[in-house]
């Protein structure tokens, strides 16, 4: 079996396990899900080695080459994102297996399998129509997962569905234009043939709007702070850490392939950058003003999405776009790991204290110091402070901004970091004992041990990856973005 066969494994493995989980008892479903996530991580490592060895790994599905068939390819971006998905699913599954309350019901297991398969598929897709179907699979799975949060979550789930499907329709229109103009839905082939600057500009613009809606990029973000906190804790973690990354990656891919072909791309990219900047500030300020843990963390995601799209304007202006690409990808990875840690830790705290309100958390730190520490460490990574992965990503984006002479992005990167620091500190402070009370005698329902360990392990991972970022940077540099697959 060649390395090419590995490209579809991260799709079929979770999909098969998801389908089986629908009819298997809970314990078996949980075990299989954990095994599949671990195996996906192995596949990511193997694919990473193959990419380091010989560049992108291509797979012509069913033996048909484009334009008749579908091409998938794994490059550095695919490999690290599949790795992130495996880790996020593994973490969420472990927590959900330890305490059913965090899963929201048996349907969690099949739906998580479907969501994991869909995001992994997006990471390797090089065919725009296949990407559309994957996005729809992801939408169905995520919407149903949100609705597992009980009767009250249905309204948030439905709102999410309308936004997500409308976003998909914009993308489907972009796909139709791609086919109409170039006669193919294969990305590389389409980019080779596209020569009309207006049509290509429209393709990019439609993708930007559609994916901005699905990713919750300001000003299309308002569904996210409703949907993500309404879901069960393990689902909230997956949605923020993983699901929004799929639409980001599609946006990146379209910019990667079509961006250089049209003069309209630069102004569009600037617009994306401005929206990202507004997201960083708006999300940060609103996160500071919320008084529920999950709501703060959801607004933090709104802010962090701003960083993830910041690479879009930078790759057009920086003299070495690779620095902007890698910086943006690393900051996205860092967000995935840190946000999963934060949501899982917050869920554990809220379950122990019996409330997610900040004013009900007093004294939790003396009973659950490690869970609070996980929130703190994750916050450090999100704020982009050393020695975390978030710092490495932010540092590279700073370099790219300086390189492009765009000091205003620099100011934004630093200002946003301060806001992140502020709302993290606010969460931590809420867990302290009341002034003058050193007894720490508050009685809590202590969660299962796994529930405490997993967020801490994730937070530790953002530090470890921050110390050895060359591991990721090497894989990402092995197949430069924009170099084609």
């Amino acid at each position, binding site marked *: 079996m060649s390395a090419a066969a590995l490209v579809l494994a991260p799709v079929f493995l979770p999909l098969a396990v998801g389908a089986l989980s629908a009819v298997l008892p809970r314990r078996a479903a949980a075990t299989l899900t954990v095994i599949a996530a671990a195996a996906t991580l192995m596949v990511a490592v193997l694919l990473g080695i193959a990419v380091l060895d010989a560049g992108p790994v291509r797979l012509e599905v069913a033996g048909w080459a484009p334009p*008749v068939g579908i091409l998938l390819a794994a490059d550095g971006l695919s490999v690290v994102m599949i790795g992130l998905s495996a880790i996020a699913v593994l973490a969420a599954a472990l927590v959900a297996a330890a305490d059913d309350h965090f899963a929201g019901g048996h349907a969690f297991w099949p739906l998580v399998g479907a969501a994991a398969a869909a995001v992994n598929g997006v990471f390797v897709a090089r065919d725009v*129509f296949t990407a559309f*179907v994957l996005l*729809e699979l992801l*939408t*169905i799975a995520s*919407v*149903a997962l949100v*609705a597992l949060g009980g*009767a*009250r979550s*249905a*309204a948030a*789930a*439905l709102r999410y*569905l*309308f936004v997500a*499907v*409308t976003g998909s*329709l*914009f993308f*489907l*229109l972009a796909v*139709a234009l791609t*086919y*109409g103009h170039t006669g193919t*839905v294969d990305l590389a082939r389409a980019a080779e043939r596209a020569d009309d600057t207006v049509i290509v500009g429209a393709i990019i613009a439609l993708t930007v709007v559609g994916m901005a809606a699905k990713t919750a990029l300001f000003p299309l973000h308002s569904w996210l702070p409703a949907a993500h906190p309404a879901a069960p804790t393990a689902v909230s973690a997956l949605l923020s850490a993983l699901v929004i990354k799929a639409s980001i990656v599609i946006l990146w891919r379209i910019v990667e392939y079509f961006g250089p072909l049209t003069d309209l791309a630069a102004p569009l990219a600037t617009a994306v950058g401005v929206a990202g900047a507004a997201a960083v500030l708006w999300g940060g300020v609103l996160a500071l003003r919320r008084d529920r843990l999950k709501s703060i963390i959801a607004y933090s995601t709104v802010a962090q999405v701003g960083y993830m799209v910041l690479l879009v304007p930078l790759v057009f202006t920086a003299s070495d776009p690779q620095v902007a690409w890698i910086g943006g990808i690393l900051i996205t990875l860092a967000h995935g790991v840190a946000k999963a840690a934060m949501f899982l830790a917050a869920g554990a705290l809220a379950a122990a204290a019996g409330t997610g309100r900040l004013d009900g958390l007093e004294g939790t730190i003396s009973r659950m110091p490690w869970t609070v520490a996980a929130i703190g460490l994750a916050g450090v990574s999100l704020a982009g402070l050393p020695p975390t992965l978030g710092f490495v990503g932010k540092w590279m984006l700073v370099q790219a901004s300086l390189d492009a002479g765009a000091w205003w992005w620099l100011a934004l990167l630093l200002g946003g970091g301060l806001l992140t620091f502020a709302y993290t500190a606010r969460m931590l402070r809420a867990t302290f004992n009341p002034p003058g009370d050193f007894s720490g005698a508050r009685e809590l329902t202590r969660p299962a041990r796994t529930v405490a360990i997993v967020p801490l392990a994730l937070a530790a991972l953002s530090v470890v990856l921050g110390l050895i970022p060359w591991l990721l940077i090497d894989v990402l540099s092995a197949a430069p973005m924009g170099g084609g697959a």
Partner: protein
Amino acid sequence: MTTLQLFMYAGAFILVVGVAATLLVRDLIRRLIALNVASGGVMLLWLALADRGDGEPDPVPQALVLTGIVVMAAVTGIAIVLARRVEQLDDDLEEVEQ
């Protein structure tokens, strides 16, 4: 203007009408109808593009449209399940308040 151009512009028009209504209408079922109308517009655009020229139409976009229709049916199904839950909750809460 050819027939196919007519179909293409009609598809774009229906899409715009549907998306606008999806964003503006509040009633859940009507919103869902608007979304389905919008998707019908995109499908019309696709099929018009597939049938350019005099020969046999391109089977690939036709297959893609089939896929799109099935996906929309699934989306519609789950949306109605959710809409029912939302409205039941609203009704039940109303009754509690009375």
